[in-house]
């Protein structure tokens, strides 16, 4: 039928309208209102989205109704928004424009007044009429700027509240305070008036940030509580079993608490006071203490206690003028959930600038203690240092060879110091490999080996050739014998001269004929030497020499000149004989 109506429809949309409405004009901060946009006779092309500063507007749903009356189809499209104010005041929701069937339709202006929530009067609380309420408590009546404190917020729920959900702060104003963390502590049951309430305590960290009258609150919140259904008659089960209860939105508000924030006393302010407020203790360590000039020393300052730890900074240390100080790093270890108690650790690198430094001067930290209303100064005594000129510091572990028990050495903070000793001097120059003289020297062992190799080959060859060996031995004998001949000739020792000559002839001929030298006589010249093809002049010369030797046995007397004249003849004969192929 709807489809038929849609097919039939068309002519009835010419009277489209667009209206906007609020379910109520006045609400308290913490409550929500509903804005409805109604389009009759058509659907908007785009949904208009109102935007009003100070109001949180969220689309909560769309619906469409189609109806046919007397053959006429009518369409109603409803868009709803939830409006939650963020502050107190009167808000105007401007006229909205929507395109419905090509027509630009405009809605009317709407006004919404947001009233401040009020804490319930004590009478109402004591009477037990309040289903839920909140109470804010400040621990002190006086604070000082920078002081951190915890404010307590109690949410009381009456004993008949079955459920408490969708709790949401709608306002947490604090003039002169900075709001920090909020934690929930242990619930407890308390009696107020003649009713029992469940107390849900919250703690909120506050830090005063100015002097004068400062205030906190009113804190406002909204929540949904579930109460037992008022109409028990509808509950058909005994004892209210399965009674799901009724949901009710409640707005909670606290009173405004005013506190005097007193300025810090000007009298007695320490010189290095840098605004730290709280109650602290301090530990300072520094190391290494045996360093070279320019080497890093890590100063670790641990400040523990109660206060605004995040805001703590290290004070300047004028006494550290002989040190170069690098910006410190810090980390905060919180020991409570509010973040007001814990330890802040600073690490600062300082480097001594000269060898006259013998100590790291005393480190002092001053703060104002709100508990005693006075300034306190914590001082760490000086740390003795041994500062050398560069290079004498033992190398850190990371620079040494890997140690078995240092698996992950800490990363170095700086370069290692300079070296005091010059070390061995080396003339700058090309590497050895590029120096020709060096390369030439390296050829010596190769040449020596080559020489030894050749020598070995020749020696082995000689050892394996008796004739060659005899040939060389005879050549040596002849060479030596010639000297003897010259000497004997000079001495005019005819007998010895010819005896030597005869022996040399025997040796030389024996070597050529490959027979024992003792068997050589003049006869072998004709018998065997001729067969070797020796030239006739050689043969004649040899015969003559043999004959001279024979004659000398009988007539040994000859002059030195005659003896010397024989030597060249012998030399020629031997030379020719050596050319004869053996």
């Amino acid at each position, binding site marked *: 039928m709807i489809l038929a109506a849609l097919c039939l429809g068309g002519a009835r949309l010419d009277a489209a309208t667009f209206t906007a409405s609020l379910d109520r004009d006045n609400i308290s901060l913490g409550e929500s209102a509903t804005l409805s946009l109604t389009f009759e006779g058509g659907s908007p092309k785009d949904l208009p989205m109102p935007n009003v500063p100070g109001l949180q507007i969220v689309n909560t749903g769309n619906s469409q109704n189609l109806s046919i009356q007397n053959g006429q189809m009518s369409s109603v499209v409803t868009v709803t928004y939830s409006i939650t104010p963020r502050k107190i005041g009167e808000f105007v929701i401007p006229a909205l424009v929507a395109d419905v069937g090509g027509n630009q339709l405009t809605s009317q202006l709407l006004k919404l007044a947001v009233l401040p929530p009020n804490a319930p009067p004590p009478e109402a609380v004591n009477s037990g009429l309040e289903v839920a309420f909140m109470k804010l408590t400040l621990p002190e009546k006086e604070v000082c700027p920078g002081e951190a404190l915890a404010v307590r917020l109690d949410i009381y729920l009456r004993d008949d509240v079955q459920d408490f959900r969708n709790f949401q702060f709608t306002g947490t104003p604090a003039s002169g305070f900075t709001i920090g963390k909020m934690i929930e502590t242990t619930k407890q049951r308390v009696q107020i008036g003649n009713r029992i309430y469940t107390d849900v305590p919250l703690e909120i960290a506050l830090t005063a940030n100015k002097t004068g009258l400062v205030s906190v609150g009113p804190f406002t919140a909204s929540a949904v509580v579930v109460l037992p259904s008022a109409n028990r008659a509808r509950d058909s089960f005994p004892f209210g079993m399965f009674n799901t209860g009724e949901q009710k939105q409640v707005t909670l508000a606290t009173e405004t608490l005013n506190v005097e924030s007193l300025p810090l006393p000007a009298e007695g302010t320490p010189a290095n006071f840098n605004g730290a407020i709280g109650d602290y203790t301090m530990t300072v360590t520094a190391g290494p203490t045996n360093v*070279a*000039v*320019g080497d890093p020393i890590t100063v670790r300052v641990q400040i523990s206690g109660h206060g605004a730890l995040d805001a703590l900074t290290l004070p300047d240390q004028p006494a550290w003028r002989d040190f170069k100080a690098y910006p410190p790093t810090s980390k905060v270890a919180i020991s409570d959930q509010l973040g007001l108690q814990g330890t802040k650790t600073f690490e600062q690198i300082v480097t001594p*600038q*000269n*060898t006259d430094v013998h100590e790291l001067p005393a480190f002092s930290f001053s703060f104002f203690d709100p508990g005693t209303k006075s300034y306190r100064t914590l001082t760490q005594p000086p740390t003795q240092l041994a500062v050398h*000129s*560069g*290079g004498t510091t033992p*190398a850190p572990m*990371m*620079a*040494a*060879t890997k140690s078995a028990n240092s698996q992950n050495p800490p990363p*170095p903070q*700086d*370069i*290692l*110091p*300079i*070296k*005091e*000793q*010059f*070390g*061995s*001097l*080396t*003339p*700058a*120059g090309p*590497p*050895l*490999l*590029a120096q020709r003289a*060096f390369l030439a020297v*390296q050829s010596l*062992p*190769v040449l*020596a*080996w080559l020489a*030894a*190799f050749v*020598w*070995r080959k020749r020696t082995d060859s000689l050892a394996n050739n008796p004739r060659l060996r005899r040939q060389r031995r005879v050549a040596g004998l002849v060479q030596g014998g010639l000297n003897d001949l010259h000497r004997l000739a000079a001495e005019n020792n005819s007998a010895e001269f010819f005896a030597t000559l005869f022996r040399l002839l025997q040796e030389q001929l024996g070597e050529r004929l490959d027979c024992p030298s003792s068997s050589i006589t003049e006869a072998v010249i004709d018998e065997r030497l001729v067969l070797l093809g020796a030239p006739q002049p050689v043969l004649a010369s040899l015969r003559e020499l043999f004959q001279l030797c024979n004659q000398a046995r009988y007539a040994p007397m000859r002059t030195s000149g005659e003896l010397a004249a024989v030597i060249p003849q012998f030399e020629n004969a031997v030379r020719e004989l050596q050319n004869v192929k053996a």
Partner: protein
Amino acid sequence: MKMYLHILLAAVATVWIFTGSAMAADIPAEFSAANKLYAEGKFADAATTYEKILQSKTVSPKLYFNYGNAEFKAGNLGRAIAAYRQAAQLAPRDAEVRANLEFTRNQVQGPTLRESRWSRTSGWLGLLTLNEWTGLAAVALWLTFALLTATQIRPALKTALRGFVPGAVAVTLLSCACLGVDAAIHFTRQTAVVITPDVTARSGPFEEAQSAFTAHNGAELAVLDRRDNWLQVTDGSGRIGWLQRQQVEMLPGS
């Protein structure tokens, strides 16, 4: 004439001896003076003094080390890295040199050459200097040929030296192979260390060429080519560009 020659030789020897001893006497004094400047925090002055000693053609690993420290403290990362690398070439097993080189390299921003397995300053090749590899190979060579020569002169030693000769030959071949690789790296490769704050590597060897990449002070780049006053470099990640010669310090090896 012969007398004049003798006098001339004596004069030259005297001058050589005296200038040499004077130089040797001056260097430790200058070194101490530079150390003092360093200790006083005058790092730039200390670097200048160390550099003056280096210009006298006399070097030592400790001198380069201190020079690197002074340049580092003066903010010249590139010159510091170059000095540490030269110290490492002279003393490759000095842990302090390596520590400072590594620390300085970690301060360098932007593209830089990462050490490869074949780098001189990393891996087993870097355990010895080129000269030490040369010396090792030379000793092995001499020993091997001494043994071979001995066996030629006295063949009876062949039995006694039966195990030594092949071992010596193997050591010689191995050390020569290492020397060959090391020498190839040393003589065929070059590294450019950027010594100016920021340099723009260009796509061509001229000022008007487009920017290829920017290298920061201390970046180590491999030199691929040269053209006039320009060097073609790469950071090892595929980026190639041209830098001017005066923007970098050249070092042998990779």
